[in-house]
């Protein structure tokens, strides 16, 4: 048993879903996502027992490309995040009816497949293929099943596609250059060669463009809010919950170990850029009238902090980044799910048309409240662990940057509570709002359970990822 | 027999063929008549041929002259096809003014 089984499960799942027909598609997809999750858990267990779960097969001889999948703490925790969130996302969409559901669910599973592939790849070429492959399903999901006016949606989605695609082409150039130098696409080979500072700088920049657009870091973020708003909620969850983590993961796995010198030299610039995104996103979130856009900007703020932590090049920063990626993945999926429930009931994304929901829905309110609180990193939620480590790492670098980054604590509370107040509180809304059903609530319970459990006892995850991060750190400081 | 190059010098041939080539270029740019342009191209080809022969003599190597044969064959083929194309054009447009051939505008 090695990590390739996860990929195979998802790929078979995508095919099976497609052939299951519209009626059964969602159930088959759910089944396979749960199976994939179980397989991942089993693999994690194997790794914990000290077994080697990596996978290596020669693929193409010339150019030398191998089918190399790496299974260490870092990649597997991300795969675990992907498979668990995929299951939750599919669960969350069960209530919706989509036209051509078989394609929709098949695309979701296919996207999960591509993202898992991205996390697992240890070969640059393979990694690039998976990286680009993941873009295709989300493009169709957002384009075909999205909301809003068709023309505007098309424009935004195509902008997103071209934008991210253009960014990753620079990454491809970097890979080809590295291949010229090493004669191999293997991650290990890349991190072993000695590049001059100038070469490292250009490679770093090429990677940075790809990742900065995907994360997104300001000023490369303009695609984000519109796509989050227009995509169907499942697509938004996939994008914000997992896909942008691909980029942060890639920073830790590829960018920093391959080109550490510029990361050290320009550390302050990078961190300030990321932290500026935190403040910028938070302040913009304050002004949003659209629920999904507000969440999009809050996501911008949070991932800015995560990226800043990763760029501190400290163990705390990297670990905080990984922990916060997981925490943010769950919380943002939960928040978008809550938004989806409200939008499904009220058929609008305008905050001004909501309000007075709490009085009708005690259960939903409590769950939403917990998610909001987790999102503002209340202690004893998982997000606090991540945010604390991130801010701590920033404070070790420079206290003032930590203060600036810490404004997310204030501003985050400001816009989230403001949103919560406007959406949920107040006199009873004229439009009826049914409380969540058991099926709807289950996804919430799962998310909240994860957030609270690991908020108090994050040790399993910390122990799981720390060796891999220490390796990365050794490579960075080689 | 005394060799010609001892009396004339290779550089004179180089100058000659350069100038001849330039005349050909000038002709191609200067005229609108496609047939005259063809002729200019022939002039350029001949300039090159001349140079090839001159160097063939200089190196006392037959390969240069052999190459000129091939070049002639190619020139003949080119003229045959080119003129056929011109005829076809003439049939359609009733002239062979190259400035009237602007259908391939971007």
């Amino acid at each position: 048993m090695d990590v390739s089984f996860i990929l195979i499960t998802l790929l078979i799942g995508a095919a099976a879903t497609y052939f299951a027909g519209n009626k059964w598609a969602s159930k088959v997809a759910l089944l396979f996502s749960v199976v994939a999750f179980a397989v991942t858990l089993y693999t994690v267990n194997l790794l914990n027992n000290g077994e080697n779960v990596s996978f290596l097969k020669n693929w193409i001889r010339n150019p030398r490309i191998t089918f190399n999948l790496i299974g260490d703490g870092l990649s597997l925790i991300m795969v675990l995040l992907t498979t668990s969130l995929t299951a939750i996302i599919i669960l969350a969409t069960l209530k919706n009816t989509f036209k051509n559901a078989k394609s929709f669910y098949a695309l979701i599973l296919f996207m999960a497949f591509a993202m898992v592939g991205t996390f697992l790849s240890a070969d640059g070429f393979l990694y690039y293929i998976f990286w680009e492959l993941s873009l295709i399903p989300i493009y169709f999901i957002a384009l075909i099943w999205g909301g809003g006016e068709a023309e505007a949606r098309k424009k935004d989605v195509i902008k997103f596609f071209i934008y991210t695609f253009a960014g990753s082409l620079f990454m491809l150039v970097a890979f080809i250059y590295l291949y010229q130098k090493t004669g191999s696409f293997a991650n290990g080979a890349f991190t072993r060669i000695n590049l001059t500072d100038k070469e490292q700088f250009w490679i770093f920049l090429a990677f940075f463009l790809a990742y900065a657009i995907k994360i997104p870091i300001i000023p490369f973020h303009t695609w984000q809010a519109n796509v989050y708003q227009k995509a169907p909620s499942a697509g938004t969850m996939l994008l914000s919950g997992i896909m942008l983590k691909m980029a942060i993961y890639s920073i830790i796995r590829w960018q920093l170990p391959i080109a550490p010198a510029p990361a050290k030299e320009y550390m302050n610039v990078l961190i300030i850029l990321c932290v500026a995104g935190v403040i910028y996103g938070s302040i913009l979130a304050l002004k949003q009238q659209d629920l999904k856009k507000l969440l999009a900007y809050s996501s911008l703020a949070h991932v800015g902090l995560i990226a800043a932590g990763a760029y501190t090049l400290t163990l705390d920063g990297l670990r905080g980044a990984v922990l916060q990626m997981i925490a943010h993945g769950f919380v943002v999926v939960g928040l978008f799910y809550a938004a989806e429930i409200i939008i499904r009931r009220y058929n609008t994304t305008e905050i001004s048309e909501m309000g007075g929901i709490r009085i009708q829905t005690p259960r939903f309110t409590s769950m939403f409240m917990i998610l909001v609180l987790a999102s503002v990193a209340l202690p004893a939620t998982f997000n606090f662990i991540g945010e604390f480590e991130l801010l701590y790492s920033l404070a070790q670098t420079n206290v003032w940057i930590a203060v600036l980054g810490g404004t997310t604590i204030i501003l985050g509370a400001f816009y989230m509570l403001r949103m919560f107040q406007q959406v949920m509180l107040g006199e009873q809304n004229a439009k009826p709002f049914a409380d969540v059903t058991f099926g709807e609530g289950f996804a919430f319970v799962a998310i909240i359970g994860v957030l609270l459990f690991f908020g108090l006892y994050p040790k399993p995850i910390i122990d799981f990822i720390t060796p891999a991060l220490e390796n990365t750190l050794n490579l960075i400081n080689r | 027999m005394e060799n010609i190059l001892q009396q004339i010098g290779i550089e004179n041939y180089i100058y000659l063929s350069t100038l001849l080539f330039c005349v050909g270029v000038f002709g191609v740019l200067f005229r609108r008549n496609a047939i005259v342009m063809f002729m200019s191209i022939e002039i350029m080809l001949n300039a090159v041929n001349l140079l090839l022969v001159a160097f063939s003599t200089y190196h006392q190597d037959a390969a240069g002259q052999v190459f000129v044969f091939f070049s002639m064959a190619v020139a003949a083929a080119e003229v045959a096809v080119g003129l056929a194309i011109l005829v076809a054009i003439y049939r359609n447009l009733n002239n062979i003014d190259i400035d009237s051939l602007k259908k391939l505008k971007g």
Partner: protein
Amino acid sequence: METKLALLLLLAPFIGFLINVFAGKKLSGNLPGILGTVAVATSFAVTLSFFLQVSSSKEPVMIDLFEWMQLKNFKVNIAFQLDQLSLLWLMFVTGIGTLIHMYSISYMHDDENVHKFFAYLNLFVFFMITLVMGSNLLIMFIGWEGVGLCSYLLIGFWYKNHDYNDAAKKAFIMNRIGDLGFLIGIFILGYLFHSLDYTDIRTAIESGKHIDPTWASIAALCLFIGACGKSAQIPLYTWLPDAMAGPTPVSALIHAATMVTAGIFMITRLNYLFDLAPEVQNIIAIVGAVTSLIAASIGLVQNDIKKVLAYSTVSQLGLMFLALGLGAYQIAVFHVITHAFFKACLFLGSGSVIHAMHGEQDMRYMGGLRKVMKVTFITFLISTLAISGLPPFSGFFSKDEILMTAFHHNKPLWVIGSVASIMTAFYMFRLLYLTFYKDFRGTEEQKKHLHESPGLITFPLIVLATLALVGGAISLPGNSWLNEYLAPVIAKQSEHHHMGTTEYMLMGVAIIGAFIGIGLAYAKYIKQSSVPGQDSEITGFAKVLYNKFYVDEIYTALIVKPIYALGSFFKNVTEAAISGLIFGLGKLANVLGTEGKTLQNGSIGFYLFAFVLGICSIIVYIFLAK
């Protein structure tokens, strides 16, 4: 066994919370309230046993559960510490908590969401216990933010009213500003000491290890900012008066007796750190004194009974911070305890009054309640005397100690504190007179319904009034049980004031001051029977005071508005500019294509020229340009 007991102490309110959240709706009548009260009472009982154990053994109980967080230099465990300080705090948190829960059963029993109320209240007690019990700063931070959350939930308990929601939000956000300071302080401490455990930090300081004094001062300052947020000091105090939007028991428990004293707890907890930073202590003292004066002056003219009490709370907290700043931690703690007694009593009393008045909080429509509400009146009177600082009530001892210390260290601060005390005496008696004396000024309808509150309400009042009466006994001048009890947790021993002439004179001055305040109130509200006029009639400086020095308006203009303006700027200008730039790149490609298309104009002659030029440049590049 100790671990289990401590966990019971901690988790009993949490279990109460869980039951009330999940099953509260199905529980009928007073059951949710009784459940909540029992949960807190359990904690109180356990606390009492620990208290007795630790006071005799003098050994703190340490409980280490499991590893929580891992940082490069150190680990943070979920661990608890029951020492003299935390037990003292737990005593009055759970004790007063129990009383207020009991009170709430009656006070809230008409509310449809009563189970939620008790759930939140239990949750608050749980977090407060966490805050107090934690053995490191991060556990304290869990509690710290947790009580902030509960405060938010309880202030906005009546969530249909957006004003209340705004007040709740304001409280949470203002607290968060302080929390950021707290967090930064934690970061610096982690950097300095490689640990966040109190014991480790104390050992490191006392072992004389060299610690960068600048960073230590900055850390202390940051922590103080955190304390400012939670304990409502300048400049972060404005949330507390607004927080009175919550139900009265909440104001009593959270916004008077327990949560707002968390800042004092934290500074006392880390007294050895603050001793390292005398300049920060100075700042604390000055902030405390100024806060007490300003809050007291605002309190002079407020008409809402709870608002007066809120400002008085801010003012008293300021006095406590004054004591902290002067390094007199025991005295600050002493005042926290006495204040908890009398202020809880005052709030509960005002709740009783509001209950009787059917929700009316404006003192201008009260009066003469003395005749109907005997118990409430007497308990209220005792507490008022206590807060005004008249012997032998508890407030006298604690307040006098603070002023005495101030006199010894810093005369201007003593003056400020004394003036604040006189004001306190004035506005408290103004409150008392307006509410309980003279004739009733409300509607006939209200008058008919005036009644003494039921036993569940009066019982806590009586208990608290008794404590307010005798609470001073724990630290009598010259023979202080409290000082001895707290000695192990406070690094610097407080200097013993020799009870000489100066001291007695100071006491006399304080008492005279109190009498002046009372006399002024008496002259104005009993003799002249004056009743504060309508809002529009207030003029001059009183208007400035009535509008709280316009601090809220200034904050709005200076901070909130600019942030929104910045948001608009970002939204309308920056976003458009950046996205325009990106679109511009796309447009550029488009334009280049369109324009470049015309280069392909179909003219063979033109192509030939280009061709010749190209050849020329290639030749030049290859052969000539070297």
